[in-house]
């Protein structure tokens, strides 16, 4: 069974981007997969060709985390890291995120709600400035951003419908 295609991207405000995705697992397991380095290294990857050779997570308030991705073919490396502000297993994680080479930082809030054995994950990224958001947009990994991309999908869908 695939959950493909049910990723929702919205923008609660002009400095935020939120993603929502449902997982077919209880939230304790989702929390574990989000916070265990050996598990994070298996799924939080970039575009094809990228791996995460380094993943360090000190899961406590004030603790640091550091992820480093590598693309051997391109000989590129890219990292991001930050500090945990709030940890409420298995329902909420708040941490800062500062990408290598980017000014400013984002505050990422992950919340997990469970219903009938399925978990809804909502990840909200709050950027501290437009500059930070734009710098994020321009990083090699093209990871993170703002503004409402679902609106574009909606537009393109409606344009397609109107064509016939």
């Amino acid at each position, binding site marked *: 069974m*695939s*959950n*493909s*295609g049910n*990723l929702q*991207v919205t923008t609660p405000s002009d400095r935020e981007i939120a*993603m929502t*995705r449902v*997982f*077919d*697992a209880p939230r304790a*397991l*989702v929390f*574990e*997969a989000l916070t265990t380095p050996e*598990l994070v290294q*298996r*799924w*939080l*990857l*970039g*575009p094809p060709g990228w791996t995460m050779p380094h993943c360090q997570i000190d899961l406590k308030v004030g603790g640091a985390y550091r992820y480093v991705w590598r693309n051997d073919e391109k000989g590129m490396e890219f990292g991001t890291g930050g500090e945990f502000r709030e940890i409420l297993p298995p329902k909420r994680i708040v941490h800062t995120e500062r990408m290598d080479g980017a000014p400013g930082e984002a505050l990422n809030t992950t919340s997990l709600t469970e219903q009938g054995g399925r978990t809804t994950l909502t990840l909200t990224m709050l950027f501290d400035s437009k500059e930070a958001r*734009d710098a994020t*947009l*321009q990083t090699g*990994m*093209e*990871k993170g*951003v703002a*503004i*409402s*991309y679902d*609106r*574009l*999908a*909606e*537009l*393109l869908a*409606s*344009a*397609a*419908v*109107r*064509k016939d």
Partner: protein
Amino acid sequence: MTPSDRLDATFAALADPTRRAILARLATGEASVTELAEPFAMSQPAISKHLKVLERAGLITRGRDAQRRPCRIEAQPLAEADAWLARYRQLWESNFQRLDGVLEELKARATKPGRRKR
């Protein structure tokens, strides 16, 4: 404009239902301001304001005919924005699909008595 500025302008222009509807109409072929104003409960000056935003973002161009100045949709910025969106969504979709796989393993482990966490 940097690529990032261009994306900003594109998405800002798209962040309005009237402008999206105008673009959807123009996707079917060029149209004058009068023709565009028809389906909306809006004055022509109000529609013209929206057209200016779309024009500045490079999403539409307007013909030279002084009387009619037909508007037509420009594919390039939309294609760029769409390509960007596709990469962004694809990145997270593939991340989350891999997470699905990890979770299946964790569930299998949880239901097998006697198996300990690795």
